């Protein structure tokens, strides 16, 4: 249990947002931190069964500092409820969190998000060379009816070219998984061949973490993926063993 957590109010694009910093008790790396991005819901990080809180703590327990945040207008962060639109990620909020972490000495960042948080994490890859990896749980893929989002495709392409570590993880049959599968023949498939991109599909509903039994498995999977992604040991065993890969 990470008991050294620290509540933080940090600046982001003129707002003051709320976050929680969890330092690693036994750091595996001195310069890397994980930014945890929740789904965009009014309750912020505490929503979704508090899974993102548990994920952030598990990451810290595994040896990586984590920082979870409430987007502007959600959770403890002030402002009116934000309008959530595809291809309009909350990048200012991510940049604010990264700047705060930079001030603590961190230089490389992994972004881990769920649903819109995953969408935001993925679209944060372009133009941010300090983003080392992204863990995308139930990521929004489509940009509209029957088409893959162009910003999503561009982000996946840049991640592959730069060697950014990427984990796509879906629950089989979840709406966002259906979107993902629909996008594959529409330009996504060749991009997924990059050696730093993993795709995992779990048997069970992942979106909104409505399956209590799946939650610890997902957290464990992200932590194991993180070890591979950060330590660069891609020869280690796959992050999933009993789960079906797509």
């Amino acid at each position, binding site marked *: 249990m990470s008991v050294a957590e*620290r509540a933080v109010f940090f600046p982001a694009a003129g707002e003051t947002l709320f976050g929680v910093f969890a330092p690693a008790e036994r750091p595996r790396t001195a310069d890397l931190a994980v930014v945890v991005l929740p789904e965009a819901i009014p309750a912020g990080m505490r929503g*979704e069964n508090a899974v993102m809180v548990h994920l952030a703590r598990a990451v810290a327990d595994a040896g990586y500092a984590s920082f979870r945040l409430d987007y502007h207008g959600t959770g403890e962060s002030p402002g009116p409820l934000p309008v959530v639109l595809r291809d309009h990620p909350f990048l200012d909020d991510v940049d604010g969190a990264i700047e705060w972490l930079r001030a603590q000495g961190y230089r490389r960042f992994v972004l881990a998000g769920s649903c819109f948080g995953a969408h935001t994490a993925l679209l944060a890859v372009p133009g941010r060379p300090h983003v080392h990896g992204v863990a995308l749980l139930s990521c929004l893929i489509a940009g509209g009816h029957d088409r893959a989002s162009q910003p999503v495709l561009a982000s996946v392409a840049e991640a592959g070219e730069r060697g950014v570590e990427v984990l796509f993880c879906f629950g089989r049959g979840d709406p966002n998984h259906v979107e993902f599968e629909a996008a594959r023949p529409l330009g996504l498939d060749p991009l997924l061949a990059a050696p730093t991109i993993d795709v995992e599909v779990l048997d069970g509903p992942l979106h909104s973490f409505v399956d209590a039994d799946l939650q610890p498995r997902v957290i464990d999977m992200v932590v194991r993926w993180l070890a591979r992604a950060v330590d660069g040991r891609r020869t280690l065993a796959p992050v999933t063993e009993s789960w079906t890969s797509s």
Partner: protein
Amino acid sequence: MGRGGLAPVAFGRRRLAEWVAAPGGPVMCYTHLPAGPARGAVVVCSPLFLEASENARAELVLAEALVDLGFAAQRFDYRSCGNSFGDPQELTLETATLDCLLAAARLREHAGTDALGLVGTRWGALVAAGACGPLGARAVALWEAKPHAQAYVDELARTQAFYDLWRDERHPAGYHQQRLAAGHPLKLLGWRIYPAFAASCSDEYVAGRLPGAIPTRLVHGRGREADSERLTAELATLGCPVTACVLDERVLWWAGVNRLLHPDHAPPPLEAEAGATARWLAERVAQ
């Protein structure tokens, strides 16, 4: 132990987030302080599970409305919930009430006042009612309270039964209650409701937890008139001055289910009630 960060977030306001030491693990408290001396202070007891997420915004609006009136407010996460630490199997009505008392003690330190009020929503109404006596509260507002805690647990079980039907699963009536009684957790939309929690609710009533005649504001959504009338009658026997309000709109809890049906489902309408509750409390709690 975590450290709190203090930062001004709006003109004339201060916000504080910190973990407070508690037997079950540090409890996260979110404190709202007025710019000047507090006229009084209010502790907000949230509901649980998905309901806590759905009500979070209304509670934030309530806290800021109280600050506008010169009051301090304390929101907090029960042990094992939200940003608090702790074992979820230890979450019971008793332990949650203890967490509430600790949050209130911390609020008193920050606000420098003994004039306290409480707000509780749904299951949190039972917590708030139970804390009124130990805290010497001057008034309490209860949002969408069930008169009997067991009725709340039954409602959770029925929500799971609804979700079962969604997945084409059928069980006999009372199936989930029986499993809880047999020691199995109820898994509801990603939350686990543990047998100890259910057991702690079996013989608890809102009226039975109140210390006596305390001004009480009851707020229920449309369709909950029976709960409002029963609570009003029970509180009247205690001599409580009761202000009962029934909103024009229905308050839909466990909208995670509804969200699957209606992606554009609006949040519960209690946000609109926050201002009225804050003014009502201000009149009765002010020192």
